[in-house]
């Protein structure tokens, strides 16, 4: 099974990366670009039989390590 944990900055938290990328895209002529946000996706191969359980474990991993809940939110998807 594959877990996909997406970790992004909470709304309202400054995203210096996104800001800089937006700026760079503008100077390259991509003038249609507005707000840019950068997130991280962590894809994990996991063994185990059951989707619900895997998702639950994914949440536990996010809370324990993958996301910094003070400034980040996360979401978990299971596939395969």
């Amino acid at each position, binding site marked *: 099974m594959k877990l996909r944990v997406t970790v992004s900055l909470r709304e*309202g938290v*400054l*995203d210096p990366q996104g800001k800089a990328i937006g700026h760079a895209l503008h100077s390259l002529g991509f003038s249609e670009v507005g707000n840019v946000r950068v997130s991280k996706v962590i894809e994990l191969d996991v063994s185990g039989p059951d989707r619900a359980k895997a998702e639950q474990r994914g949440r536990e991993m996010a809370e324990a390590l993958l996301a910094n809940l*003070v400034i980040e939110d996360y979401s978990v998807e299971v596939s395969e």
Partner: protein
Amino acid sequence: MSGAVREVNESLAREFGLTAEEYGRVLSIMGRTPSLTELGVFSVMWSEHCSYKSSRKWLRTLPTTAPWVIHGPGENAGVVDIGQGLAAIFKMESHNHPSFIEPYQGAATGVGGILRDVFTMGARPVANLNALRFGHPLSPRTREIVDGVVRGIGGYGNCVGVPTVGGEVNFHPAYDGNPLVNAMTVGVARQDRIFLSAAAGIGNPVVYVGSKTGRDGIHGATMSSAEFDEHALSKRPTVQVGDPFVEKLLIEACLELMATDAIVAIQDMGAAGLTSSSVEMAGKGGVGIDLDLDAVPQREPGMTAYEMMLSESQERMLMVLKPERTDVARAIFEKWELDFAIIGTLTDTGHIVVRHKGQVEADIPLDPLADQAPVYDRPRAELTAPQPLGEIYDPIGLEESLLRLVGTPDLASRAWIWNQYDSTVGGQTVKRPGGADAAIVRVEDTQLGLALTTDCTPRYCYASPARGGAQAVAEAWRNITATGAQPLAVTDNLNFGNPEKPEIMAQFVAAIEGMGEACRALDFPVVSGNVSLYNETKQPDGNAIAILPTPAIGGLGVLEDVSRSVGLAMPQSGTLLLIGETKGHLGQSIWLREVLGRETGEAPEVDLAAEKRNGDFVRSQILAGNVAACHDVADGGILIAVAEMVMAGSSGCRLDVPESGMRPEAYWFGEDQARYLLAVEGDGAACAEAAGKAGVPVRVLASIGGDSLVLPSGATLSVARLRTENEAFFPKLMARQ
């Protein structure tokens, strides 16, 4: 009032941190119920952080002047004359609470904030230092906090390109729930190009530059109420995120503008952002100020006046410009791709008037806001004496003690930390971390050197706050002296618990008294600083435990000829001399704690006359070229100091047996003050004779050479063995999950 769904009354004022009495004062100043924004302004300006209401009375007792002091406390940072028309500008500031909540960003924004205090005065920042106190190494969050704080300091400092050259680290359970992150920045400016914050010139434009304003860190302490304005405030982040890239641009843009004559006054937006910067600039200049918040560059839609005035978004500055020069300024900030907005003007009203969307959101008379700010003389308890020292015995012997001590958290090699800090950027770092008792940075294009250090021994301060305060100053002075530099001035960061507790207030006052005494005796005035109170950890039983009293001292000294500075690495040959008197003081020593497991006894005595005499002698010997290496004797006593020299120089020595009748552990690990180790050529007779003439206690301690430290017993510890013990702690701590 837009955004305000809560009624302004005494209960809201208390939520904002004002007392009933203080709120009464607000009512009498305003002559009416204040608006939400006005209440916000009062509450932050009268907060402990901005008003120094518990500490002001005592800070005033510190010596702040000397012929070389150009600006003491009261400006964004202290300014001292370093010769050749140049000035060193420096300050230290805490970011303790944010670093506990979010270690990386808390520490990073701490570095950003102190950098701004320094370059806002016209200085190019040339060095950063950091004084860190963490909880017990085995406490649950310590590892994570150490990791985040160190990454954060490096992440910010490395990116802005200011070398991080020094600092200090302690571990103690008293910091478990409240680590201390004190950051210091040192900059250099021309004395005729120093910028102050007092606004002047009615009608002059007030200009905002840097990053946009978001809802960062608004009123963290007071904002528990999501019901305040449901949609806008529900997800309020109180953690500020730093953008060191923008800070770097801001430094360059400000320095470029400062080379013109456009600036009347300038001030960084630090704590309480737009509020404190505008109120302070206008207040200092005795003028009024009108702000138009519609012009403020905003990162998020729908921000209220209250939010904008209290936002602590990072990397922003406020300036008053000469009106005819605004275009020059705008062009510079556009070149650096930073926001630039005229957001107000200076007035003759003596009020701060804040407009937003066509409404007056705040109108406050500035004089009473400043003059009637609360000042407290808080009650103090009688200080309690430390526990008696107790019986001394040595269960393990010198060799085993030495190996244990060099590996203990407070003495272990800090290389794991400083190897994450860029210490060479700028190309002026003469002594990097670990190379000397104080870091040495050359002033570009001159032969001048700055010697920089931070010092405090919290366990002494806890046992005896007055001695501890004096010792912190004395050690900073000694560390500078040990490089050959002339100590000039200090900045401080006074970290204490809750001042409303009489025993904490007593610690605070005693520590300041000790500091003041040492500063006076050593001609080492305080030119800037910061106070951080309420550093306590809530226990499960509801009680709060205070940190150890931690008056961190940042010291600055100068060398006229930086090539004369010495480090602490043991040379290949010669003689090691001990300067200063050894009485074998084991109270509060590291040996006592690590070997007998006790934190008992008095802190060591600080004899300021001996400090001065011994230090002046050592400096004169260094400057005369008679000294190959010098190291002060501090935590862990003589044997630790010797081992540190041996490890730094990869060169050993054979210790002479002491003639004193003292217990060996007291002699070798006692922490008497005012002592130095000097490595000199030959048999050291000339230096010893000079010491005798100067009335300075001196004895031959060791002959230098080989690749081992040979103890009086004949036991031999190789450099490699010592290093292995010394370097193990941090990697092991950080490898643990």
